[in-house]
């Protein structure tokens, strides 16, 4: 199969959906040029009315997504860095997430908020967040976090076709990663985790960029433990079943989460597993997350965001 980079896969998903449905449009700061390459070139094909460069106004951009989606459009709002969701938080977390619900479920809001997540680039606290729990604490939103080009394309297409507001987080560490992407149209259903590597001793759940380290650690430790690695792909809806099946098999669970530890996805998933499979656990669940600090600039970053050694240590501990 042909290979594409992650950013190209995103670009292609946008192009195909723009082509397929004239109600789809893209809006954001400089999307005609494209900060991450994810939207580059689309304006040549679809014109400035559908690839809309906007003023530096995340609040209005998000408002456009909310408003236009109620009238049958399928806006994709490019927020650049996920950290910037904080500057349009009312629009995303109170309006997009809750509008349908609070008006009795009579409307649909098919809009996508796409944003770049992740650290490891020494960009500091306002360009490095991975704010999964910020999204997850707002029911009404869906959350997709692809970890390879195939998923990047398939999940974005699903996001655009979904009749609900979807937050689509793409990771800066994956932008240049290549992988097979079919030429034919395909989508990836939300709420279907994928087992990236099979194993019998310990389950590692690792969304987005964390998958790399899970695989690397599994490989590194393969003579000692058989590690099963699961990528949930969407965090809402979450495919808890696949995770439970694995945990029932292995009895051990490590959860990786690049987001700040406190009140994060890792704690939530651990709690759900405890609620459903407490008796299947042979050891306490371990989590490896960003420590409870802002993300520092410079080399100090490494003391805050998850490191590969921590992943290995967690697997060893849970197996000890």
């Amino acid at each position, binding site marked *: 199969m042909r290979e594409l980079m992650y950013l190209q896969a995103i670009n292609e998903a946008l192009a195909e959906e723009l082509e397929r449905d004239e109600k789809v*449009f893209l809006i954001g700061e400089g999307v005609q040029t494209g900060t991450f390459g994810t939207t580059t070139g689309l304006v040549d094909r679809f014109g400035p*009315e559908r690839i809309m460069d*906007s*003023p530096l*106004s995340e*609040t*209005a951009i*998000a*408002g*456009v*997504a*909310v*408003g*236009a*989606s*109620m*009238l*049958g*459009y399928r*806006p994709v709002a490019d927020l650049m860095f996920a950290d910037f969701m904080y500057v349009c938080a*009312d*629009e995303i977390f*109170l*309006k997009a997430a809750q*509008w*349908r*619900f*609070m*008006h*009795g*479920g*009579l*409307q*649909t*809001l*098919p809009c996508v908020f796409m944003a770049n997540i992740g650290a490891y680039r020494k960009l500091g606290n306002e360009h490095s967040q991975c704010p999964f729990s910020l999204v997850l604490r707002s*029911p*009404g939103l*869906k959350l997709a976090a692809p970890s390879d080009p195939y998923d990047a394309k398939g999940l974005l297409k699903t996001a655009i076709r979904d*009749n*609900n507001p979807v937050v689509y987080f793409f990771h800066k560490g994956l932008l240049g990663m290549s992988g097979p992407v079919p030429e034919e149209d395909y989508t990836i259903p939300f709420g279907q985790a994928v087992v990236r590597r099979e194993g019998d001793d310990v389950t590692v759940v690792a969304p987005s960029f964390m998958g790399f380290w899970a695989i690397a650690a599994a490989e590194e430790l393969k003579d000692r433990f058989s590690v099963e690695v699961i990528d949930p792909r969407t965090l809402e809806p979450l495919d808890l079943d696949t995770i439970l099946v694995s945990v029932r098999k292995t009895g051990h669970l490590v959860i990786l989460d690049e987001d700040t530890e406190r009140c994060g996805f890792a704690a939530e998933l651990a709690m759900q597993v405890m609620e459903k499979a407490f008796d299947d656990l042979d050891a306490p669940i371990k989590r490896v997350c960003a420590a409870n600090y802002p993300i520092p600039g410079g080399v100090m970053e490494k003391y805050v965001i998850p490191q590969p050694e921590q992943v290995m240590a967690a697997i060893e501990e849970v197996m000890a």
Partner: protein
Amino acid sequence: MKFEKEDLVKLYRNLVRTRAFDEAAVRWLAQGKLLAFYHPAQGGEAPGVGGCTFLRDDDIVYPHLRGHGLPHMIGKGISPKLYLAEHCGKATGAAGGMGGFHSVFPEKGALGAGGTIGSCFPVSVGWALAAKKNGRGQVVVCFFGDGSANRGTWHEAANMAALWKLPVVWVCENNGVAQFVPIEDAYPLEDLSNLASAFGMPAVVVDGQDVMAVAEAVTAAVERAREGKGPSFVECKTARFGPHGIGNPDKVHGKDRDPRQIEELKRRDPVALFRSRLLEQGVLTEEDAERISREAEAEVAETEAFIDQSPFPDDPGMLDRALYAE
């Protein structure tokens, strides 16, 4: 726009109905029938009624919070029945009893409203962009207060609307106070319409107690928007007769609002003013006016009976259905 006799009567009828339903809502809140809270429209009915009565069905309105949108919905031709059933928490309400003071009537251009003041602006721009894209000539009319105009959301939305010449009309219901804060303590200039100059948007200031003046100004701005000429700003100087919300003290700076000031304001009651004007001009007779009042009261009574007979919702399955669309 030239208003025919029936237009004027319709305008008057809508004003009277708004007042009647608003008074009923206050009553029902005291009785525990209307849930949560209520921010009466009394004294400030004209901007909503005047600004909405002559819109097209498919024009879209973002209602201001006064009367929780009663003036705007009534102006827009929406029966307040399902809205008030909703506000009373009944299963027959517009949102099945789970919206509280939130209701939508999409076929009449009422697509809902948020509870954070100032969130009206970005959403309205989204509607207006969609309206421009779909080319059906729809116009969005966004109503908001003087306090709302302090929110930064205004700036981003107004800029975008002006830049892209979106079909939206910004109607400011300036009643001179935001909850407990008088406008002198919230904005440095006399007229909020100065905000429009930052974006080169046309702006007018009208007597917001004169429902016709409002209707004329908004209609002109709507026509302009419909012709693709972009947004404009209509500032209506209006009034709030009572406290911000039922149960709130009617204070500014921690002191009761000056009763003489309120007396003054009440002397310019928009319903009474329009009534005398129409009587004077012979558009209405005393009997007409009384009939209209009686009809409004009958409508209120009918609505109340409907609400009283309606059950509360009790199906937790509603939650999932409302949360995500298929």
